[in-house]
């Protein structure tokens, strides 16, 4: 589908992108800051996300909650942080677009005067509760804490998780907040999309009016990335409060839009996308040794992670499951996909694209996607190129992407077994890991 746009860069470095669609009287405001947990310092993990929370606590000219003026305007809003970027969005009825821009620009330009140690302390507690709710108190919730440090040994900025370590969150100081804001939260490190019921000229004028006066900041400090890779096919064992064992197989894989990235998306669909996929049929449908299976190419700015996850049916071990997955994978590695598998996975991905882009706002909607292309590529108009790489990934491309990434030696296998469960439920020779 076509997503038309215009782009300008303001004098202070802010990229502004306008997408017009008058078919519903709403406007999406979507703002990306090119900073995520990979920009954090060791000992201060979780800081980028904690900082995102502070962006909702008021700014100099509206020293009150961020939600109130926008919810009363009928708007919806949210923000999120991952390893690579932090995004903020509002979707508002047309008559409230100036209010949304006033609010977004006030927190970009004037956040610090309104921040207090009390607000910081409360949000630190909220984030610790978010960590408890989303990770600690959830079955299999601590898996990423066990997995990521092994996939990305110390020295790599994906070594730690975006949610951070509790002791680091507790160690974060009010001074850190000020320094982080000055370094990363300025127009030169941001990209703004206005999408929906707005005209191009008006959009640029409003963006200039509200954001044009905010001074640019320093250029983004570079990050160091160690190139220590995974070797020796590590096997890990995590005990958790779960009923059924689950196997996580992970490999480092091509980065976002890198060579082989799209091919591995297609491979993930062929392996585990729906009930006609290879692994679903083999593990869940036919042999019934697993209750579910999924696969995904999680691509990030520096490097991706390809993973296959399967939960054992009662009475079955992860060793059986690993053998079946390895067998299916070796068929792909040796022979590639066959028949109409490639064509069907392309059809699925293409239609997913259309479903996601129904919305102008929200996470993953048109405005968010325009910003993703702009921030990672410098070009918002990447829709056709993006879809094109799926259309051109054929059987050979998928086979060679699998051969390049999914090699045995660089695989990390994590077995999760019940707290009291027999060790034999997991893969043999797995090293127990303890995560807090």
């Amino acid at each position, binding site marked *: *589908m076509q997503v038309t746009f215009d782009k300008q860069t303001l004098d202070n470095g802010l990229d502004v992108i306008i997408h017009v669609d008058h*078919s*519903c*009287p*709403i406007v999406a405001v979507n703002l990306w800051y090119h900073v995520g947990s990979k920009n954090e310092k060791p000992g201060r993990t979780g800081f980028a996300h904690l900082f995102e929370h502070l962006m909702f606590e008021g700014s*100099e*000219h*509206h020293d009150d*909650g961020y*939600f*109130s*003026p926008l*919810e*009363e*305007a*009928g708007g*919806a809003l949210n923000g999120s942080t991952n390893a690579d970027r932090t995004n903020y969005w509002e979707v508002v*009825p*047309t*008559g*409230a677009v*100036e*209010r949304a821009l*006033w609010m977004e620009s*006030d927190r970009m330009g*004037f956040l610090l005067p309104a921040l207090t140690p009390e607000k910081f*302390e409360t949000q630190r*507690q*909220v984030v610790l*509760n*978010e960590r*408890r*709710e*989303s990770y*600690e*108190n959830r*079955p299999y919730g601590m898996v990423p804490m066990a997995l990521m440090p092994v996939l990305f040994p110390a020295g790599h900025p994906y070594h730690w998780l975006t949610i951070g370590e509790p002791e680091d969150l507790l160690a974060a100081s009010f001074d850190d907040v000020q320094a982080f804001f000055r370094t990363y939260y300025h127009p030169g490190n941001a990209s703004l999309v206005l999408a929906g019921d707005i005209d191009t000229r008006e959009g640029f004028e409003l963006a200039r*009016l*509200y954001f044009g*006066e905010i001074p640019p900041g320093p250029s983004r400090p570079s990050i160091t990335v160690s190139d220590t890779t995974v070797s020796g096919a590590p096997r890990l064992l995590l005990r958790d*409060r*779960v*009923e*059924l064992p689950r196997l996580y197989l992970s490999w480092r894989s091509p980065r976002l839009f890198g060579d082989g990235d799209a091919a591995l998306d297609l491979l993930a669909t062929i392996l585990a*996308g*729906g009930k*006609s996929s290879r692994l679903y049929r083999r593990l869940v*449908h036919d042999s*019934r040794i697993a*209750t579910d299976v999924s696969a995904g190419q999680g691509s990030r700015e520096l490097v991706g992670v390809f993973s296959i996850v399967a939960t054992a*049916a*009662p009475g079955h071990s992860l060793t059986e499951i690993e053998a079946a997955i390895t067998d299916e994978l070796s068929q792909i590695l040796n022979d590639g996909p066959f028949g109409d598998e490639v064509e069907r996975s392309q*059809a*699925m991905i293409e*239609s997913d694209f*259309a*479903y996601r*882009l*129904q919305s*102008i706002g929200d996470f993953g909607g048109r405005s968010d996607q325009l910003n993703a292309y702009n921030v990672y590529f410098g070009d918002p108009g990447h829709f056709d190129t993006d879809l094109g790489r799926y259309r051109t990934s054929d059987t050979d491309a998928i086979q060679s992407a699998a051969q390049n990434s999914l090699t045995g030696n660089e695989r990390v296998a994590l077995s999760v077994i019940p707290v009291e469960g027999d060790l034999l439920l997991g893969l043999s020779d797995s090293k127990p890991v303890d995560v807090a």
Partner: protein
Amino acid sequence: MSVDRSRLPTLGPHPLFRPPGFRCSTLSNGVGVWTAAHHRAPVLTLRLLVPVGAADDPTDQFGLAALTADVLDEGTRDLTDVGLHVALSRIGAHLSVGVSSDATILTLTTLPKHAAEAMALLVDIAVHPRFDPDDCDRVRNLRLNRILQTRQVPTAVADRVFIESLYGAHPYGHLAIGTEPSLRPIDSSDLSAFHSRWYQPAGWTLVAVGGLSDDALLEVAKTELEPLSTVTPAVAICSRSRRQEPPPIADRLIFVARKDAVQSEVRLGHPGVSRASPDYHALLVLNMVLGGQFVSRINLNLREDKGYTYGARTAFDYRVGRGPFIFRSSVQTSATADAMREAIKELLDIRETRPPSERELAVARDALTRGFPLGLETATQVARVGTTLALHGLPADEMDRFVERVMAVDADAVLAAARAHLHPDRLVAVVVGSTEDVLPSLGSLGLGEPALMD
């Protein structure tokens, strides 16, 4: 020109927005078809509403409605299970099957160019499921495994215990997935019998929204649906059973132990109202003030003021019968009783000492009415609204009056609705948390002695 930062920009007038209109037809065999052309994106959503839900489960077969729905896509008369899913993936279609207490809804999303094939597959799935005994056993076992796994999911445990305690033997007193003992003996003959009794096309409504004209959408629907034979379904019977009054509540405070839990999963509530309540719009406004959005009293108190939780919300679940009113939150272990006390106080205050102020009411009404177009942006959203209207027997143009009705809700109406439908003296409370850290503190809440369950 520079920005005036001394005050927020005023809002423009309320959006002029006419919600997408449905065209309703009834086919000669009684099937209802609602169509809405929608061209924002190349997407077509088909939703087939079958008016049978978990509330229609026989009392010794909890989970039957949901299992029946789950096996529908395991092959049809002409297609094997794998063959069916290959056909769906060829057209890039997403199929999902949802079973609530009130209804079963099959949703198929695809590109408009595949409309005819998608419609044919959807009808094949709903009308000619294969119900092969081996497939039925396999899917039932997958559901049993899911029930097993959810024993370790605090949110799922809290929801289950809450619903069971609130409704007892009422048709709303169990989750759609059922229970382990009730699900285990169910076999393919039970599914076939349930399907032939309840899946009668004369009770169905198809809602089709997407990038085709109304005529084209209707034509596609007609081709597949009109030839179906049908008998009159038992809709009237099931809606009567849902409307029974819930029985009296046995325990008011229920505690489920979760060793060393770092948070407590909390539910508070009581039976609420049906969608047919004349207070529906007043309750929408009330809940926005109380706990329906970020800036609601309860979230601002528990999260933004106290930092006890990542979030706290309340909701009325508007069903055919009286759905629950629920407060939900995960709170840090040490703050469990304090958080519950604050939540209960907010329920009391809003109907007694601190009714919504004019300012709060204006904000709530504006949030609902100005935000109205946001909920009707995409074909998928419009189709969802259509299905809800059809389920509750509401007119297809109901949404045309939404803004006017919400704007007419005044302080008296909200206070009256709060007093009629919020009952802080009749709350059921469920806590899933650490016994040693939490249980001793719960006695002080005034909800009686905690009953222990698992």
